[in-house]
């Protein structure tokens, strides 16, 4: 079964093509590595997959589907409603003085107050004229187009991708520095949490139920990456190696079907990277597919089932570690022409 499929993905920043027409597939249960010299477009590729930069052309299919908020009828109704509400609000606001004068100030404060009469008077003030209609229409247009614009920019966003089961780590560690290790994992669990704002504010039972369960799970995950001891320490004050592992635990917390690791072994010594390889294998045993970017060839060759090679944004090779090792194009890309 294909977990991830890239179909002729191209990503351009202005004149710069970061990813050029790349296609490949990742099958369930595989460990796939993306390698390539610096600036080959690996991280850009990850960012495209996770929805940070939507591809300029081409498609990213996760579990056979493009992750995108569709412009459903519901969205269109939403924009219309926002437009209409803005229009009404602008019209009312611009005529608020007149309406209030007619409806409230014109009547004596009696009990009961003649609400019906007040409403009629208010409507009378609001008879159509250029002054009531044009600003309203402009406001409505701005409201609707603003809503559309907001939808357009948030159409493809990382949180949606995460919610369909893709989790990632970052090349330059991006933990929530002021949260404790456990809280970091709990944040990673977000897609699986359902309690409401008021549950937490008023300490209602759903909050406690979920909190207990989630904390237990978080502690389990921390133990899985050997960080059980530092659960209450703020993430920013953890040593580098711990932070790397915490990022992995946080990513695992969303129970992803696909895990993207961006240079997990960067800055690690051989012992540490060996234990990292062990960890990645353990993750695979949980049934999670892994896609990783890595420069450490020992790690890449040691654990990958398949390898994709990028060079200047183009895919130049794909295959098993053995095939890649022999591939002349790859050798050329890495070592230059003379060596080839």
């Amino acid at each position, binding site marked *: 079964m294909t977990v991830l499929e890239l179909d002729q993905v191209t990503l351009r920043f202005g004149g710069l093509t970061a990813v050029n027409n790349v296609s490949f597939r990742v099958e369930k249960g595989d460990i796939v590595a993306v390698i390539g010299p610096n600036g080959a477009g690996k991280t850009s590729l990850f960012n495209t997959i996770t929805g*940070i930069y939507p591809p300029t052309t081409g498609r990213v299919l996760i579990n056979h589907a493009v992750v995108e908020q569709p412009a459903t009828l519901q969205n269109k109704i939403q924009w219309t409603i926002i437009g209409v509400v803005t229009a009404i609000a602008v019209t009312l606001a611009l005529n608020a003085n007149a309406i209030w004068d007619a409806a409230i100030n014109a009547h004596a404060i009696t009990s009961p107050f003649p609400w019906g009469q007040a409403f009629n008077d208010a409507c009378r003030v609001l008879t159509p004229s250029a002054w009531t209609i044009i600003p309203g229409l402009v406001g409505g247009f701005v409201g609707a187009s603003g809503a559309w614009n907001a939808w357009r920019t948030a159409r493809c966003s990382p949180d949606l991708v995460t919610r369909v089961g893709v989790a990632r780590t970052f090349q330059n560690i*991006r933990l*929530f520095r002021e*949260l404790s290790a456990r809280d970091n994992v709990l944040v990673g669990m*977000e897609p699986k949490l359902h309690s409401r704002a008021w549950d*937490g504010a008023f*300490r209602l039972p759903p909050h406690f139920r979920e909190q207990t369960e989630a*904390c237990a799970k978080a502690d389990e995950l921390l133990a899985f990456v050997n960080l059980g001891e530092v659960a209450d320490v703020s993430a920013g004050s953890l040593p580098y190696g711990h932070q790397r592992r915490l990022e992995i635990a946080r990513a695992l917390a969303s129970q992803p079907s696909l895990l993207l690791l961006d240079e997990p072994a960067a800055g690690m010594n051989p012992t540490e990277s060996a234990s990292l390889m062990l960890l990645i294998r353990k993750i695979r045993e949980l049934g999670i597919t892994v896609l990783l970017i890595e420069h450490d060839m020992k790690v890449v060759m040691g654990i990958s089932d398949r390898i994709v090679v990028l060079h200047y944004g183009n895919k130049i090779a794909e295959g098993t570690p053995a095939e890649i090792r022999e591939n002349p194009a790859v050798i050329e890309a890495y070592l230059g022409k003379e060596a080839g």
Partner: protein
Amino acid sequence: MSDHPTIKIIARFWPHALLAIVLVLPLFGDAIATKLTPIMVFAIVGLGLNVVAGFTGLLNLGAAAFMAIGAYTFAICTVPIYPFQIGFWPGLGVAIMVGAVAGTILALPAMRLRGDYLAIVTLGFGEIITDVLKNLDAITKGTQGLNPVAAPEIPFVTYSISAYKPTYYLYLALLLVAILLCHNMRKSRLGRQWIAVRDDELAARSMGISPARTKLIAFAIGSGLCAFGGAMFASLNGTSIEPSFYDFQQSVVILCIVIVGGMGNVKGVILGALIMVGFNSIILVNLTEWMTRNGWTGNNVLATPSNWKFMIFGLALILMMRLRPQGLIPAQDVEPVTQKPATAGATP
């Protein structure tokens, strides 16, 4: 903070001591109570801003506008010149709701903006609100302000309006409720989302959090609290006061309340409100009176104590930030959001 045991004890127990003092103070006379109630109101407004600026990291320079919305909503709902007259408690409820809706409306267009762009948009919103309140004079009576608005009341208890103690304890109770709510929210899923968005928005998005939604909720709750404070302030003064009271200067005071105490923690806000409002209404006033009484005054511009207020206030702010750049209670001293619940046993 320092490791010295005395300081540790102070750091640990000052909230308890403060609560005890605040509970018994009115017994020494109403004079002090009358000075503390506005501080409580500003503490609530500060808590509201803290949700937005402290927890979620959105610099909001228009907190006073939400206070104004609360005060005016409350006033419109309760003044005898309008037919609504729904009374103190329903009035508070409506004020909170209108404040929350206004916060959401402001947040909608402001959602995608980076920190300082958001700051100027909120500042602009504040200016717009003061202008609108002034200009819609059929409703708000313009610069007259609306009065008399409903006075604070305690259900099933009747007391004379001039008795200050019931109001004092009512406001204290409301403040404690607000503190509790803020504390709970911060320790729940919502609090984690806010802080995650504040620390690293992109990472938070990659964890499945929708920053837009998180910020909207923060704005709604924060503005609701500010409006709550505004309504309480109006009720305390018996009038919605005038629109220009809720201007940028007021927003700056509220922002200072949040920052001086230490961004993003509830205790800090309380301390900030005590310092910022108390400094002016207690220390400066008494300093001036003391100087006047001792004849340290003259007709020269420099010899009039109240002419030095801006200077003292400004220098105090600069010094406070210089000596404790993280605020009086820095975020590092704050315990983790979610503590290990007793029931969740240690995993092997």
